[in-house]
């Protein structure tokens, strides 16, 4: 990845709010800006409720009520997705965005064969003059199944005849069917067995390298993200608190939250295994926030942390939003 690789997605100041019936609004994604270059494989990690899935859905304009995109601009391939609606949005999605969900089981209809699923997608998004005959879909299906390392006879099978790993490979194959430029993987292997998980992740990595699509991997598992991606975004309480090349995350200083997350893992083969946790819980995002949202759980917090919300500033090879770690930046930060 070089600086001259063109930008595929550029999101600025994205805000998402959930408006639950009868409850107070929850500000789930707060003023997030990020930009993805073509062919980049980016991971988003964080605890449940940190807004990582909400951000993924917002970037692809797939939010469902009660969630609403309440602010920001999402430039995808030069078009602002945030301003599109209806047919224009659908056409834009056909041109480049796909989503793979956590459970292949729930993403597939139990009463349709794999071929039927594929045919639905191909026909719904057919361009003028495109051959959508059964034979053509079948040819395309066999080709796609081969990509996700499944035998051709899977095409005629129903979801209940497939294992969890195979079903997830089918979801991936369907996501690939329209040659997307961007694929968002939302916890693609969480429901799978560890050994199957490793195999499915390996296939996703191979596909990404071969086809060159841009990928976002949303996961709670820092280990999986570090193995697969080139860049990691750490989210906490609706904000990106750190943005680093994946290879850098295991060395040097980081945002205290990133460090605390890393401390929750250990090598089960080590002589001494000490497993850390993070005491306390994330803030309630239905209340207004002041200062750094991690400060109440942070071991390094200083007075300024409770008052001023730190912006992302350079740290190591990337950026982090921390007053203490971004030493020397505190003066400027307090002005922001």
């Amino acid at each position, binding site marked *: 990845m070089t600086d001259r690789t063109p930008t595929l997605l550029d999101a600025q100041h994205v805000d998402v709010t959930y408006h639950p019936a009868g409850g107070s609004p929850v500000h789930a994604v707060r003023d997030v800006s990020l930009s993805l270059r073509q062919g980049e494989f980016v991971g988003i990690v964080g605890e449940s409720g940190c807004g990582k899935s909400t951000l993924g859905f917002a970037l692809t304009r797939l939010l469902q009520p009660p969630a609403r995109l309440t602010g920001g601009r999402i430039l995808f391939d030069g078009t602002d997705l945030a301003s599109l609606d209806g047919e224009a949005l659908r056409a834009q999605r056909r041109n480049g965005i796909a989503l793979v969900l956590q459970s292949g089981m729930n993403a597939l209809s139990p009463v349709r064969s794999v071929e039927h699923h594929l045919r639905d997608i191909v026909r719904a998004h057919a361009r003028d003059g495109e051959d959508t005959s059964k034979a053509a879909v079948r040819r395309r299906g066999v080709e796609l199944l081969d990509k996700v390392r499944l035998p051709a006879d899977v095409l005629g099978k129903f979801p209940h005849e497939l294992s969890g790993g195979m079903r997830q490979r089918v979801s991936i194959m369907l996501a690939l069917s329209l040659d997307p430029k961007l694929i968002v993987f939302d916890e693609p292997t969480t429901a799978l067995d*560890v050994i199957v998980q*490793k195999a499915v992740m390996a296939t996703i990595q191979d596909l990404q390298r071969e086809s060159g699509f841009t990928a976002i991997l949303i996961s709670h598992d820092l280990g999986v993200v570090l193995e697969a991606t080139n860049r990691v975004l750490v989210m906490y309480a609706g904000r990106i608190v750190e943005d680093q090349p994946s290879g850098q995350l295991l060395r040097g200083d980081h945002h205290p939250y990133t460090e605390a997350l890393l401390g*929750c*893992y*250990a090598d089960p083969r080590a002589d001494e295994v000490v497993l*850390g*946790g993070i005491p306390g819980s994330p803030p309630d995002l239905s209340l207004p926030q002041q200062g750094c949202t991690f400060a109440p759980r942070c071991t390094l917090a200083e007075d300024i942390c409770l008052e001023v919300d730190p912006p992302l500033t350079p740290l190591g090879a990337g950026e982090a939003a921390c007053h203490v770690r971004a030493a020397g930046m505190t003066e400027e930060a307090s002005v922001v």
Partner: protein
Amino acid sequence: MSDHRSAQMPELRVDGVTKVYAARGRTRGAKTIAVDDVSFTLEPGAAVGLVGASGSGKSTLAKLVTASERPTSGTVTFGDVRVDRLRGRALRAFHGNVQMVFQDPYGALNPLHTVAYTVARPCHNYLGMNARQARNRVHELLDIVGLTPTEQYAAKLPHQLSGGQRQRVVIARALACDPQLIVADEPVSMLDVSLRAGVLRLLEKLRQDRGLSLLYITHDLLSARVVTDRILVLNKGTVVERGDTKQVLQHPQDDYTVALLDAVAAPHP
């Protein structure tokens, strides 16, 4: 509380146990051997891990040990009780001694009942306590699992709690009837990594303070390393490797154990 019997805590002995599930309906006659000739012993106060991928038979073993299923052959004994033959009143008494903690703290709690109600049920059912005794016991249990201030947590409904707090409620309920053995089936796999250490430390502490035995079922080798002394690695219903947890993980002999270790994508240098 457990002083009166700490001297003669029973031992769990699983001896040559096999469980075969026979299919019904269209595929009648097809047989699945979920557990194949497994033996192990769990001494009082010990923690043994059953480790394996999906379909390895680890959860079936949990069901056999807790008398939720009966083995096709082999025996399960707890002290001098034949677990595989229990029924009626004896089965109920056994369940007062052996409790389970399940994977999903979201599914294990009735969303309509408060924490106090959930934790008080076994106090009424197994210990025959009256309302006031049960109320005191609830606060004592919530204190043990670290849900303090207990008055505040007792009044809450499951949806007002985080996953880690819910799992603590499930553990408090399991402890309510003062069991001698806890069977924990993937108790932390649905929790955020930041909360796992807390729940694992709680299990470890309960074992030390109360002399509980723990049968810990997981696919996660890291948590097995943290809470167990010995592990059995299961593959397709059979034990492929067993021994001291640290020893097995540092020097795995079986290919399957190696594959499980390799599958762990752990962020460590």
